[in-house]
């Protein structure tokens, strides 16, 4: 880690004013401190925003307004999250460990960086994300954890967040504050695919600060929702793949399906083709499988992760079947 100054922001305006050109906002530090220590990232100043007010409240529209500095533990335990958006509580609780969830903030979770081991290996590996133009050692290396959708020959890294998969499924909106004032971005548009610029991971501009996340009002398909994570050990591991699903039925048919996939791309992957294909269909395992295959037709597996296609299919079918109450 290179020398840096530490500043504790007194409020949001203070944080924005003091970030400067090379300053970084510090949330829980569970990812950034590690990245700085391993010299993957550098910063001259850390502006600590983890102690700013972190509130969770119902929005005027009946949704939920979550300040960016809310801790993962607090969000997962909130009564309205548990009753109206169980997929979000379950996704948060699937992530990391209790210690890390006590530290990690909502804003920082959204901005956590890939866990690709070549990205972290400053001395031993090439990485276009860390050093544009250097090459990618994951492409033909150990890529069991890497992307099958939306990747490029420059970068095959995945976004590691569980929380973001649930937020994508719920149509969450990110509130930003920056030099150009305040603006809002749907979470599904916030992270960008690697293309030829894998070092650019989000639509954030220099000096932007995530201030809050807003959930739309609950609906049948958010209340009847689930998050299932498949990993190499049953706890405290990043996802191989994960599925956030929500289902609303009417007259024995699918009225609305919500599906997002984790561990498959550089961003949470909303399976919109499957969602559309299922409307008006009977909620059967065969229908679920046919639907998710419409999204997976674009999958381009790497040397070590072709298993993910079948794993996504089986997990998606299992989740939606459970939500349909027709456990087969």
């Amino acid at each position: 880690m290179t020398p840096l100054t530490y500043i504790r922001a007194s409020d949001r305006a203070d944080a924005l004013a003091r970030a400067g050109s090379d300053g970084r906002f510090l949330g829980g530090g569970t990812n950034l401190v590690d990245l700085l220590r391993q010299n993957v990232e550098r910063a001259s100043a850390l502006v600590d925003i983890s102690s700013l007010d972190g509130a969770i409240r119902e929005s005027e529209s009946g949704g939920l307004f979550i300040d960016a500095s809310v801790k993962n533990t607090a969000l997962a335990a909130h009564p309205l999250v548990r009753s109206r958006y169980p997929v979000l509580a379950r996704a948060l609780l699937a992530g990391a460990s209790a210690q890390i969830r006590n530290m990690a903030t909502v804003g920082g979770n959204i901005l956590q960086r890939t866990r690709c081991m070549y990205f972290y290996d400053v001395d031993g590996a090439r990485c276009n994300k860390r050093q544009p133009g250097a090459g990618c050692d994951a492409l033909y290396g150990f890529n069991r954890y890497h992307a099958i959708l939306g990747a490029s020959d420059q970068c095959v890294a995945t976004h590691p967040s569980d929380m973001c998969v649930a937020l994508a499924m719920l149509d969450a909106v990110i509130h930003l504050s920056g030099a150009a004032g305040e603006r809002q971005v749907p979470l599904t548009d916030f992270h960008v695919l690697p293309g030829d610029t894998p070092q650019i991971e989000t639509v954030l501009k220099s000096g932007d600060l995530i201030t809050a996340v807003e959930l739309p009002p609950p609906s049948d398909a958010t209340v009847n929702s689930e998050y299932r994570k498949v990993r190499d050990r049953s706890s405290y591991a990043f996802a191989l793949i994960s599925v956030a699903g929500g289902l609303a039925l009417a007259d024995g048919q699918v009225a609305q399906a919500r599906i997002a996939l984790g561990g498959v791309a550089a961003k949470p992957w909303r399976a919109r083709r499957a969602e559309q294909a299922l409307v008006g269909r009977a909620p059967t395992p065969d229908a679920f499988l046919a639907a998710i295959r419409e999204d997976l037709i674009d999958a381009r597996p790497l040397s070590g992760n072709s298993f993910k296609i079948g794993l996504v299919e089986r997990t998606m079918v299992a989740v939606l079947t459970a939500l349909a109450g027709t456990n087969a």
Partner: protein
Amino acid sequence: MTICVNGTEVSPPADARVSLLDLLREHLHLTGTKKGCDQGACGACTVLMDGDRVLSCLTLAAQAEGRDVRTVEGLPGGSDDLHPLQRAFVEHDGLQCGYCTPGQICSAIAMAEELRRGDPSYVTHDLTAGTLVATRAEIRERMSGNLCRCGAHNGIIDAIETMLAETGA
């Protein structure tokens, strides 16, 4: 602003890069808290900050300013100067080499409070249930952030169950 470590006010380090873990071990010589991976993967460095369990390796000491930090050295003991959970660890062989033990102890003490509060875990079946049952599956999931390379996990769970039974959690 100072950091309260086991009831004593200490000054934060001059260098902002110093982790809370290194402050405890290298500056204050409180070597009960252990450095395992130093990257948030093992839980050996777990301490309590304002009562919540956190990883001291990923916490900058500066972030602890104005906060109350408690380490294994600062746990309230009984007549033999051991916390009830420490006695239970001895009784149930909850350790072999002992390196992960201070982190396990701090983690489990905070976990008991989380259970009392009703915080759910990934394996909690009913997220809206008001009260939780501390099954072995719940304890294992909640303690998954503390690795033990000696494989003493079964003894650790036994010890935690004993403590929860004694304290009525």
